[in-house]
Structure formats: structure tokens, C-alpha cells
């Protein structure tokens, strides 16, 4: 059997090639004449970058969430994080409609953090933490928060805004409206700097304490990263489901969970998957577009089912 690091390097190279091809496709596919440099600069390049940054960010957020919650089926949209971020966006838009998008993003990050912390608190209090009940709790929590958002949005005539945050869509991304996502790249690098600590946290509280980690601090920092990445993504591209679920599971199968090694793969695969889904969404009903969140829902859901069956078959 070959060493996982060798295997990892091979997959990394493949992933890089696939990623470049997908990025090129994303630049080329669409309505409009490519000889028009303006279209490239104003729309295609920003859109492609947004997809790469959002996909990588959400996949990284997913793997961090899975390690911290010690459960393979959680990610920001099944842990209350995404719905809490959306609620934050809604509230700050109501209270301070003219605030710059960075401020709105920060508010969303704060509520996302609160929601995720609440989710983890509920988990710790749960006597039986079975594999599938954990994400169910998160989905329920997200449902409650989401219902609150819908209620508020309905009363304040904000349902349309709510829709743009809840559904992932990059077709309106233009130069000047996606740059916030670079923050997600910064956060991803921060996560990489914490890779060992997050992996150790994934080994559990006792292992962390034994190795001298301040477990609570590491978990708090990790979910702050997750919440911020989620908030940035929702503020610019809306909620993108499944990337954070499918990608970490796939990467874990081939390269394991030692983040120092696997995080670049997770980020790359997340970017690739989102690019793929968006290009598909642009092609299926050409010249019309299907939002990337919708395509992702179908593709990701399918992949997830396959993974679920495979994992269960492979394990006792």
C-alpha cells in the first residue's frame, strides 16, 4: 500500500489540473462575446474567482465543523450556522440599511457564531450523540432560526432579500461585488495555520487536554472561523449547501483528516465542485441560467447519498 502522503500528492496534482480546466471553462462559458474584454473583466473573472473562493471556503468550513463536532454529517448548513448568518444579515439590513456590506457581514458572522455555539452546547448536553441525530439537531435548530427569519422578513417586506441570501447564486456577481470573498481566503489560511490544533481537537477533548491544548479555546477559534467564512459567503453569494458536506467526506476517504495535509485538497476540491456546478448551471438551459445553489443541491445531494452508502458499507 502506498503512503497516503504520496497518494495525497498525486491527488493534489490531479485536483490542480481539474481545477484549472474548470476555471477556464467558467471563463469561457456563457452568453456574450468573449472578444469583449469588458465582459471578461467585469463579469466572468469576478464570477470565476467568486466560485473558487466560495467553494474553497465552504469546504474548509465544513471540514472544520466536522472535526470540531466529531461528526461527519455536519457542515454550516446542517449546524445552524448558515441560517443564523442569514438572520444576522436580515436584522442588520433592517436596522441599518445603509451600512457597508462589511458591517453586515460582521453582524452575520456574530449571529452565525452564536448559532453554532448554541448547536455545540446542545450537542454536549445530548446523552446519545448518534451519527445521524447530530445533523438532525442542527437542521432542526437551523429550521427554527430560518422560520424566525421568514417571519421577520414577511412582516417587513424583506422576503425577496431573504431569498438572495438563502439561495446560492453567482449570476449577479460583478466586479466590485465579490471582493469581500477574499476575506474567506484569508480565513482559510488562518485555518491552515491552526491545522494541527483543529485536527487534535478532532481527536476529542481528552486527547486535546493530554497534549496540552486549551480545548475550549481551540473550539471557539475554530467555530469563529467557520462562522466568518459562512457569513462572508452568504453576504456575497448566498447559502451554498452540500459543498461543506460532500468535499470533506470525499477527501477524508482518500487522504484522511490530518488537516496539515488535507486542507489544501479540501479547498481545491471545494472550488472545483462549485465551478463544475456553476458551469453546468450555465449550460443546461443555455442561454438561460440555473443558480449554482440549485445545481449544487442536486449534484451534492446525489454525491452525498453515494458517500453515505459507501461509508456504511465500509464500516461495521
Amino acid at each position, binding site marked *: *500500500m502506498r*503512503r*497516503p502522503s504520496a497518494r495525497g500528492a498525486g491527488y493534489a496534482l490531479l485536483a490542480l489540473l481539474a481545477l484549472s480546466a474548470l476555471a477556464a471553462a467558467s471563463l469561457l462559458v456563457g452568453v456574450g462575446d468573449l472578444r469583449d474584454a469588458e465582459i471578461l473583466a467585469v463579469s466572468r473573472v469576478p464570477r470565476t474567482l467568486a466560485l473558487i473562493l466560495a467553494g474553497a471556503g465552504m469546504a474548509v468550513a465544513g471540514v472544520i465543523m466536522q*472535526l470540531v463536532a*466529531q461528526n461527519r454529517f455536519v457542515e454550516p448548513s446542517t449546524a445552524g450556522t448558515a441560517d443564523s448568518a442569514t438572520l444576522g444579515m436580515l436584522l442588520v439590513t433592517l436596522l441599518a440599511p445603509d451600512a457597508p456590506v462589511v458591517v453586515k457581514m460582521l453582524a452575520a458572522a456574530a449571529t452565525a457564531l452564536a448559532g453554532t455555539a448554541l448547536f455545540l452546547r446542545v450537542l454536549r448536553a445530548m446523552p446519545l450523540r448518534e451519527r445521524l441525530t447530530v445533523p438532525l439537531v442542527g437542521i432542526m435548530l437551523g429550521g427554527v432560526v430560518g422560520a424566525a427569519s421568514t417571519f421577520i422578513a414577511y412582516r417587513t417586506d424583506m422576503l425577496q432579500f431573504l431569498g438572495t441570501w438563502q439561495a446560492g447564486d453567482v449570476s449577479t456577481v460583478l466586479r466590485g461585488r465579490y471582493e469581500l470573498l477574499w476575506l474567506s481566503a484569508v480565513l482559510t489560511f488562518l485555518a491552515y495555520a491552526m*491545522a*494541527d*490544533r483543529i*485536527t*487534535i481537537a*478532532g*481527536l*476529542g*477533548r*481528552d*486527547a486535546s*487536554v*493530554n*497534549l*496540552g*491544548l*486549551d480545548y475550549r479555546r481551540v473550539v471557539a477559534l475554530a467555530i469563529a472561523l467557520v462562522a466568518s467564512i459562512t457569513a462572508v459567503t452568504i453576504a456575497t453569494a448566498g447559502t451554498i449547501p452540500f459543498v461543506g458536506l460532500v468535499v470533506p467526506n470525499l477527501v*477524508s476517504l482518500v487522504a*484522511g*483528516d*490530518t488537516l*496539515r495535509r488535507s486542507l489544501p485538497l479540501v479547498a481545491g476540491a471545494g472550488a472545483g465542485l462549485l465551478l463544475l456546478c456553476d458551469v453546468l448551471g450555465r449550460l443546461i438551459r443555455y442561454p438561460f441560467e440555473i443558480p449554482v445553489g440549485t445545481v449544487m443541491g442536486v449534484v451534492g445531494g446525489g454525491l452525498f447519498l453515494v458517500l453515505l452508502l459507501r461509508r456504511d458499507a465500509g*464500516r461495521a
Partner: protein
Amino acid sequence: MIETQDLTRRYGDTVVVDGVSLRLPARSFVSIIGANGAGKSSLLSMVSRLLPASAGRAFVDGLDVAATPGDVLARRLGILRQENGIAARVTIRDLVAFGRYPHAKGRLTAADRAHVADALAFLDLEPLADRFLDEVSGGQRQRAHIAMVLAQDTDCILLDEPLNNLDMRHAAGMMGLLRRAVDERGRTIVAVLHDINFASCYSDRIVAMRDGKVVAVGPPEEIVTEAVLREVYGIEVEVVLVRGYRTVFFYR
């Protein structure tokens, strides 16, 4: 050296560790024995700061475990829990390398790598080193966790049932390894053991617990007797001398 003063743990009204005061000298191998539920793991967990004490204090090398920063303690005390799930999918080599985290903080030097290689070799894990934890057997996983504790290279080592899941060869190998760590490298090792014969053959001292209390402490000659074992386990056993070691027959 490990010391406890009146260490107590309660759950509601139930006292599971009841005012335990022990002084376990440095450079010795101490076994803790006792029936299921006697409070062995709870005692060890309090000494290793995994479980807060309800009352009393615990010291490792003179450091109060409740007041010493976690990373300082992590360079002096290594612990193995009774149960080690497969939380994250890491390779055995990575797991053992994490044992160096208290020293290396993620940047392994050549010396750190040597510790990791030694630990893998000591526990016969070299051929399995690049397998994921969820792709090996229970005993192999147990050995991986012990290798991690050894790679941590601490003066004091607390092991909760280190022989769990191990076959005869690896169990005897493990006890020999721990004994040498005490004799040759001056470690202080405390291990919870259910196999009284291993405890008898390898320990400098045995601590016998019942209902949260220490009922007897002493060298194997004093503890491995029909009277003490009757008190600790409530069964009749026969102690026979085999090659100079006190051995217990209790199988039927």
C-alpha cells in the same frame, strides 16, 4: 512523583472516589487494581486533569494539576484513556506524531521524528504506520494510542487498562516495555490492570481499590494474597508461587 490528597469525586450524592491520599514515588511502576466501578478510572482522570475533583488535590512532580497550565503539564504527564474511539481519520504515524505536539508545537525536528520512529518500532507498528485508525484492529489501535503516549516522552505516564484488546505476545511485550521505561529511563508509570498476574509480576507497588477507597497499598508480596484479594474482589482465589512470582489461580 504523583501525590493525591483527599481526592474525592461525587456524582450527586454518590461518592465514586472517596478521599484518596496516595504518594507514588518517582521511578516506580504502580498498578491499580479493583472491581469494575471501584473508581480506578475516575481517580486516574482526576490526576490527569480530565475530570475535575469534587474535593482534594492531585500533584504531578509537585505541580498541582488543577492550577498548572495545560501545556506545561503535557510535557510531564502522558495519559492513556480506557476507551479511545476513532474520532478523526488520521494515520497511525500522524497519531503518534501528535504525541510530540507538547514539545514541537507542530514543527517536528529530527529528534521528534526519532521519538516517533522509536515509539512505532517499540509497538510493532511500522508495517501499519500509514494505515488509517479506522482501518486497523482494536488491539492495533490500542497499541497506536500507547505509542502516542510513549512518543510524548513524559516523566509520568498514566495508563488506564493498557492491556485492553492486546494478545498474549503484545500484552507481555507491553509490560516488559513499561518495566524497562521505569528501570532504564526513570519513568513513573501508573497503570490500571485487570490482569492480577501481570500486576503481580511487573509492579513495584499495587494499589487496591474498592468502592472508591484505597483498601491496600504495597508491594505484590503484600497485596497478592488470598486475604486481600478476597477483600478487594469478594472471591476465593488460590495464590501459587511460579518461578518466584505470586500468581493467582481463579479460573474455576
